[in-house]
């Protein structure tokens, strides 16, 4: 069976400077893959190329057998790619619950006419969306915040809202860009348990994280990026022993 995600020779530059260059990546179904690397290594750029927020200059992204690198992001969401951004990309002015309900967009269909006429099918779907959103909030431990304005939440919790929103779209591939930053130790442990759970459910997860301990405990395999290139790949133990990784990444961490 083909891997869920395959990236071939992916390239993307900004103003002539490569952020991602000739990246190859294969992620089998059900794997939890960590992507690590120093600041500016190109991790978020790689995620944006997979999620559809950016178009590549070259190379290909194949998801579940489809070449998706020219698809708009909403089509990729529909196909089952869920995203949690590094920044607090929430929908200001809406409640936490409404934010999460938006996540169901890709897996629901009622449109303009149904909404305006309040057709029974539309009302039924609204109830379903509400139910799913509440489940996702419960799963991310945010139920108590459901009716609060999302702007009122601390940044770490806003990322939790993004995670709940992504789960509401029933993803098969989840891209998590530094989901633990801004969380306290206890919250990190909860997040780790949740991610573990999601993997048990069969989700394939791509995780960017600076906290090496956090990554080592969770990840099946680790891909290390530096200056836009893959410099190592393997199990957490293998990668931590890799000299280039120590020099490029862990070295930077130690000296920082």
């Amino acid at each position, binding site marked *: 069976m083909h891997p869920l995600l395959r990236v071939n020779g992916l390239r993307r530059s900004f103003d002539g400077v490569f952020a991602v260059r000739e990246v190859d990546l294969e992620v089998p179904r059900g794997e939890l893959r960590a992507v690590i690397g120093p600041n500016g290594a190109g991790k978020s750029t790689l995620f944006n190329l997979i999620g559809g927020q950016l178009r590549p200059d070259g190379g290909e992204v194949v998801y579940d057998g489809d070449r998706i690198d020219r698809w708009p992001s909403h089509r990729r969401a529909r196909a089952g790619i869920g995203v949690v951004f590094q920044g607090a990309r929430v929908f200001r002015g809406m409640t936490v619950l409404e934010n999460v309900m*938006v996540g169901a967009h890709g897996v629901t269909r009622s449109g303009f006419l149904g909404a305006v006429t309040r057709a029974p099918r539309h009302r039924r779907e609204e109830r379903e969306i509400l139910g799913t959103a509440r489940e996702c909030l419960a799963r991310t431990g945010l139920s108590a915040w459901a009716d609060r304005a999302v702007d009122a939440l601390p940044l770490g919790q806003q990322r939790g809202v993004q995670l709940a929103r992504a789960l509401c779209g029933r993803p098969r591939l989840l891209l998590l860009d530094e989901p633990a930053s801004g969380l306290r130790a206890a919250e990190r442990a909860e997040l780790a348990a949740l991610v573990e759970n999601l993997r048990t459910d069969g989700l394939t997860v791509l995780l960017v994280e600076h906290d090496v301990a956090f990554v080592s405990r969770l990840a099946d395999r680790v891909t290390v990026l530096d200056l836009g290139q893959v410099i190592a790949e393997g199990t957490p133990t293998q990668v931590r022993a890799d000299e280039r990784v120590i020099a490029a990444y862990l070295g930077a961490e130690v000296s920082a």
Partner: protein
Amino acid sequence: MRTTALVLAAAAAALALPVVLDGRQLGIYVLAGLAAMVTVGLALLMGFAGQISLGQASFYAIGAYTAGLLTVNGVPPLLGLAAAPVLAAGFAAVVGIGLLRLRGHYLAFATLAMQLILLSVLAQSEWAGGAIGLQGIPRLSVGGIELDEDVHYAYLVLAGLTGTLLVARNLVASRVGRGLRALATSEVAAGASGVPVGRYRLGVFALSAAFAGLAGGIYAFYLGYLGPGSFPVLLSVEYVVMAVVGGLGTVSGGVVGAVAIVLLVQVLNDIGTRPGMPSYAPSVLSYAVYGLLLVIAVLYLPRGLVPALSRRDRS
């Protein structure tokens, strides 16, 4: 609870007013209602798609001319009225494909240009009555009953506005509406959540045009005469001011803004047409006050009257 009471009170007032108003005031009522229909759509567009249209009066004009031309050429008036929003929305969908790629100021300029082009085409087209305009539009008749008094049109406008508000309210509270509100604050996150950003933006643009087109259709039957001069650029500016003052991204803001500005314009007209005032006084005064209102609204009420008032209500 308090909101429900307010809405009921406003509805009761709107229902009772046509009976008690005199002829001139009824005219103001009709114009305010029509402006409110246009503004409700524009507030959706500006609030949810984050787009400023300086050409919203074009869709009003298209609706008016559609209804007028069809009925003058023998189409039943009700059919002409129904065609008005459809054609306006279709036109918006076609130009929107190109225009909505533009952001911010560019879209404002492009929609302004669209209106100028439309006005000059209308003024030069024989079939549309040219610069003189379209005369002798029959009055609307529904089921054999001819609407020939201003009171009838006041209620017709009220019905149109109610329909517009219901559509807007149901939409905002729905899946599509959540998608629209989401894309207004973060296109990137909305797209990643499965919201087809471009299509939705085009959709609100067309919807706002449909509201304006319907209002224009009613206007054609109400006045019985149309000319390019009935749809000046100032009218488009007026709608933007109404939407901003009332509150973008709210459903009732359009109504509040429209009523407030129409009443204000009446006051200004009274002042501007006093004996001794130069002939250009009314238009200079309106432009000055619109400019001033926009600045004040942006500085002190960035989200408009309705959100400001309801926030106070909550705290």
